């Protein structure tokens, strides 16, 4: 703990977790949260595994659009759009 700073409890830490992970938090709050992380292993693990969860999903290439399907869909879209344009 640094002098003058409020001790952050686990529940308070969790409330700030999203802003902390996204890096949209003021310097003072960040320092208080990181003080908490220095001594609270439970929150440290929650932060690191949540961060990993996000990174795994972001990098997973889940539901990539195959190129052949992509071509067929684009052709269908453009045909429908052209037909719709003629109607109006």
């Amino acid at each position, binding site marked *: 703990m640094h002098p003058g700073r409020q001790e952050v409890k686990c529940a308070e830490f969790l409330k700030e977790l999203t802003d902390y*992970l*996204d890096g949209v938090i003021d310097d003072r709050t960040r320092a208080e949260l990181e003080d908490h992380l220095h001594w609270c292993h439970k929150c440290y693990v929650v932060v*690191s595994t949540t961060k990993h969860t996000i990174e795994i*999903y*972001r990098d997973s290439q889940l*539901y990539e659009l195959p190129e052949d399907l992509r071509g067929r869909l684009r052709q269908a879209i453009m045909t*429908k*759009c052209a037909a*719709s344009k003629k109607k109006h």
Partner: protein
Amino acid sequence: MPPIQSKGVETVSDELALVRAAKRGDMGAFEQLVKRYDRNIFRIAQHITQNREDAEDVVQDAFLKSFQNLEQFQEQSKFYTWLVRIAVNESLMKLRKRRTAKTVSLDEDVQTEDDAVPREVADWAPNPEQLYKQEELREILSRTIQGLPSGFRTVFVLRDVEGLSTEETAEALDLSVPAVKSRLLRARLQLRERLNKYFRKSNASGETRSEVR
């Protein structure tokens, strides 16, 4: 610990020029917009509908609707955010059709407050994704995110997979910024908790697992 790096959709300065050209009837310009965002719209649609055929329909319907309503696009937000909003609505309509007796909305199953508290805190193996073959990992991730309520799943996909900002996500889903933040927190924590059983240290045997249960 450094913050996560957002992938995001590149902000391209010529997007507005393409939209304006498409409004004037330039089909080539509209096709460029389709090429730019079709992969994103397909991912979003499949994440929400959890059905490949529905996702294909959503991609077609979302682009067709955006084309037909291009005049109504006010250019105050990004075209992509507007397109995502259309695609999310189309996806939710598909979900409703599949669950005819049940109303599906972004408010579904998101009322409880106690789900933000981690129940199990176990550290993960150093590179947990390497415990599984690529196909097995995709199966785990797909099955895990399917278990989330659609209201959480949608916010997570837009923010963390597609890289929209909190404000853009709020605009696309017609939610307030605090509502997006609250759902994002709970979606992230629930996913983390559900992945524990696959990635925790006790699973790190050093061998590639061959089976996913």
